[in-house]
């Protein structure tokens, strides 16, 4: 199913494309909360825009920490990200006018 992506979702895809590979890194890069990022990652994975993999347990064990879940963009994810970025690019800078003090 093809749907317009929210700005938050685009930001998450962008962060992953930029090399941020797991939850808290993506939060730091996007400024979104954990309550937004984690469910969004699951959704993106269901939509096959990202895929995740568990890091090699031996590596983690050697470093004395639990193995992490890393996220990566799929080709489809790369496409929708490029498409979305193209769309945002059409918003060119304008002179910012705000609502005046008219009475009607």
């Amino acid at each position, binding site marked *: 199913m093809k749907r317009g992506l929210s700005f938050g979702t685009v930001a998450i895809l962008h962060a992953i494309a930029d090399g941020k590979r*797991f939850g808290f*890194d993506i939060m730091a890069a996007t400024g979104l909360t954990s309550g937004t990022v984690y469910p969004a990652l699951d959704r993106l994975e269901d939509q096959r825009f990202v895929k995740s993999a568990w890091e090699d347990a031996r590596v983690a064990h050697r470093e004395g920490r639990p193995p992490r879940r890393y996220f990566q963009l799929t080709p489809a994810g790369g496409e929708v990200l490029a498409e979305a970025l193209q769309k945002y690019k059409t918003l060119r800078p304008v002179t910012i006018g705000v609502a005046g003090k008219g009475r009607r």
Partner: protein
Amino acid sequence: MTPDPDLGPAPRRADDAPARLPLRLARAAVHLVAPIVPADRRAGWRRQWEADLHYQWAFLTGDAAGHRVSPARALDLLSRAGGVVPHALALRYRSWTMPTLMSDLRYGARTLVSRPGFAAVAVLLLGLGIGANATVFAWVQNFLLRPLPGATHVSDVVVLHGTTKTRRDISMSYPNFADLAARRPDGVLDLAAERFTAVNVRTSGDPERAWAEIVTGEFFELMGVQPAEGRVLSPDDDRTPGGHPVTVLSYRYWQRRFQADPAVIGSTLSINGHPYTVVGVSAPDFRGGMPAMSTDVFVPMMMQASLTPGNRLVERGNAWLTVYARLAPGTGIPTAQAGLSAVAAQLAAEFPDVNTDRGIAVYPLSGDPQSATGIFGPVFMVLGAVVGIVLLIVCANLASLLIVRGASRQREIAVRLALGASRARIIRQLLAENVLLAIAGAAAGVVFAVWASRLFRGFVPPSPLPIDATVQLSSWLPLFSLGLALAATIVFGLLPALQASRPGLVPALRESRGTTGGRRRTRLRNLLVASQVALSALLLVGAALFARTLANAERFDVGFDLDRGLLASVDLLPAGYDQPRGLDLLARLIAEVERIPGVESAAIARDLPLKLGGGSDTSGRIEGYEPARGEEITLFYDRVSPGFFRTLGVPLRDGRVFTARDDGTGEHAVVINETMAKRYWPDGKAVGGRVWLGEWATVIGVVGDLTYTTPGAAPVAFMYLPLAEYYRPDVTLIVRTKGDPDGIVRPVRQALAGLDPDVPLFDVRTMAQHRDMVLFIPRIVATLLGALGAAAMVLAAVGLYGLLAFSVSQRTPEIGIRLALGAQRGQVYRLVVGQGLWLAASGVAIGLGLAALLLPLASSQLIGVGPRDVVAYAAAAFVLLGGAFLASYLPARRAARVDPIRALRYE
């Protein structure tokens, strides 16, 4: 800076526990929330969160010796860990929105259709409970939340009232309003003023009494009201006094009186005898600027002199206007209040003679203390409480039904559990059925509400004002109903679903009929039935108290004879009478009416005793009486013709009453009541005393007390002023008859028509009908509580019957054994009826306790009966226990007829 995951600082394996507290807390959160996550994803979810938290912890403590982190960093970790809740919920939610939900709903629909009886009862029950609540919701929305339909700016509009030392709801004079508008206080965009008043409108033929709003030129723009035809009034229509004889019709008046004929625009009609040109019709929804009232015509403020007495445009002391202000976007009431108070202080300094101690109070439209909305407020509170209780009873009943249904489906559920369905899956399935019930119940509720919302007319107090009782239903109604139905079925369906899905595989599959029903299940149903009885008891006690109030009020001695009186109102102002001509007409009217056969006497008064809103009052001074510090002498008064006391049969205690000579030309005279005499002349020498009412008036007589407001209210100090001196054109004719008052209505009308055919007689009613007006609220509450209390009792009885019938059918083998072992039929009766009565009695006890706790809140509306009146409580208990006996009798009879042989054969 974001750490590179691969090159990030390596975590250390340190076990200094206190320093790791934030991490432990975060992990505990993961552990706690994990059960929410669907089982197939739970392990991965936990690993992911633990790893990420661990990594973040390592990052935070990386460069800190001994892993000591600042509280800010600890907080950062914990706030990140807070994401586990939405994450888990999102996963759970997604597992539900998967196709299983659709199949749950389909399966639910099939099972409901296969048991149409259960479904129909449940939907009807829900429809009743939801419908009653939706009806009240529609009313509240109409009269409190959207007080001025058709006015598009209404969210920014507030009402301004004048304040004195003691009151915060008085009107404003035109000069004060004009100064206020000219100074445009901070935060206020615009100001408009209006006055609601009765007028005579004549197109051709007889004059008709109609309601006009005299409005300033900004009124329509401030309210945001568009014309439906022609145009609305603008500031240009309101510049020179007397110079703008134009009028805008309300949409309804245009439809009713002119059959929506567009040709009326540009034509002329006569208002109070003055010609006005119709320039437009206001928007269809707009009823006028008075909440819950319906205006017929709008007239510019500058035409005031032809509509109300005096030249009020220049009298600063004459407060008669309601003022509306439109606030600038984002301005709150406190800001506006500050700006307006500053201007009020300026006005008090500039015009100290009338404005000293006067201020301005700002109210939201729905909180206007002067509007009819204020009258509905208490009615809505009672209504809301009562329908809420009905919904609770309905829900308890529904829960009982669902428990029984769960019990009868135990085998089906056990099979599904045995085949590997999870308990959560079963619960979800049962709740899906409830959702379907909720949708159907909400639909039934909306149908009910559409029908019942029309009953609002019955809740409108009888009043000479044109209160608009039409209820417009909004699209919120179905939403409200559905939301309420979903909440009710899910909250009250959860417990039965939890019970039904309790794994107890083996006995259920064996389908043996136990000797008693599941103990937990029975206990829950007992509790539900007892609480239904308790809530019914609360409603019935309330109904009994208000029924006694009505009975008391009808017997109450109000100080005058109610059975032989006729009342009729006249208003001489629209017909163009000045004071001398008006007084002359009224005197001749009294003489004509007294000549009618069957009339004992007649009189004129401005206000009447037994008035809902009380009468007029003024602050005064009394010669020789030194008020205590801070005491303000408030004197209630009425203006009456000399025959008033004779006509109402008010006894004279001392001195004399008015004669035709008390017309202000000689000594100013005042007659006072006993309470006032005792209060201010404790020595008993009231006659000859003097009262300051702008000038000294002498007390010429003392008369007995009357009931001025509600029957049973404490007597207040009251005085009577001669109408001939304190003239008012809008008065009421009081006629005392020898017999039945209905027969003299026609002769009275003819008498007035013979004097002046242009003056309409309106609001003709008997004294008893007038008295009923003040009993309006007790009567409504009694009717409502009685009807809903009866419905609640029937529901509770049905619930009790269902419980006992079910229990009897479950206990058939046990009863069979008892009978086989020699128990008498009578003992079986007692067993079942005893169970029912015991349950009902405990419910009644709780209900009476609740009533004793809650009903004192309604004390102010009770007359001659306390909120803990023994008779009312006993009556409610008796009725409920009687109902409970009947409800237990039928199952008991069935139990007593159990054939021991057949009962035991099943084992």
